[in-house]
């Protein structure tokens, strides 16, 4: 709105710069998920990249940089809360299933109609052994890799 201080050519230059950054980060994301890195490292890199992209769109394209502090706080505060709430709950769910996988998966199965989890074998820590480690699968179709328990 009050970008009267910028000449419109400057504005266009910024828009195109953001466009190239967004494209570059998208390519980076698509490439990095196929890289031979630990799953956690890939996840963190991709999440940081996508949050920066979202921030760039909000800040430049939606002109949040030209709004007052009051509007920014009102808009962004609930989203920050939601973000940390989500991180807490998802990490908590992940940790619970690591510690008590037999209990939780049993409940999940009964409640959600989960299939393919009969004949599960637990290692000495109580974690599920990945399906491809077992050779006696009842049907040959379930070949998909399961990385939920690779550490």
């Amino acid at each position, binding site marked *: 709105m*009050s970008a009267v201080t910028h000449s*419109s050519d400057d504005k266009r230059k910024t*828009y195109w710069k953001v466009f190239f950054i967004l494209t570059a980060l998208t390519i980076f994301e*698509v490439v990095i998920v196929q890289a031979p890195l630990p799953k956690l490292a890939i996840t963190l890199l991709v999440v940081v990249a*996508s949050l920066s992209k979202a921030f760039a769109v909000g800040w430049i*394209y*939606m002109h949040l940089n030209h709004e007052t502090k009051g509007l920014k706080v009102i808009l962004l505060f609930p989203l920050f809360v939601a973000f940390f709430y989500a991180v807490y709950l998802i990490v908590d769910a992940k940790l619970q299933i690591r510690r008590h996988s037999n209990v939780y998966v049993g409940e999940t199965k009964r409640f959600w109609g989960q299939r393919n989890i009969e004949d599960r074998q637990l290692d000495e820590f109580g974690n599920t052994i990945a399906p491809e480690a077992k050779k006696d699968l009842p049907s040959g179709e379930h070949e*998909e890799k*399961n990385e939920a328990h690779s550490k």
Partner: protein
Amino acid sequence: MGSTSVVHSGHSAHTGHNNKVERKPDIFGSASNGKIGMWVFLSTDGLTFAGFLLGYGILRARNPEWPDPSHFLGIGLSAIATFILICSSVTMVLAQAAGEEKNRKNMLRFLALTILGGMSFLGIQVYEYTHLVHEGMIFWDFAKGPPQFASTFFLVTGFHGFHVFSGVVYLMTIFGRALVGKYNDGNMNEVEIAGLFWHFVDLVWILVFTFIYLI
């Protein structure tokens, strides 16, 4: 509040043109009423998406049998869709910039390109859905893995696709109004509000692409 000095009096009269109520500069500065309304709507809409993604995250974290999405979803195709949405975002801001300079021809051209981008995105999504349904993935069941994988996928991408559809209709309305010369005076308040919605759709897709397709 303390931020009143941001506003120049001439500018405030300029943006107040399309509003029935002329507001004195307050905590929101010179932002028009419609713009504040759209921002608040987008914030709550963002919370809806956050709720869906949160549910997805918890279902996935609790399920050790969750498949790797790249085995079933076409990442290349959705990367192209992401790129198309980014392109349509940049054409949207360029349309607004052209309109502020009273360059009517460029404004209409860029608005049309934005609409085209949105339609291409919807086309890709229809193609993708058709493909997935043929592979046994429907809203309440999945032939090759946990049914929650299919449900959360269709819920999140479908809700987003509905936003893209609404955005295309919204932008078509704006395009029609631009065509009959409503924005020839360089007052782009309505176009900017439509742009806010459109950029939000792009922003959400950037996150959905990462959380649903890539991770």
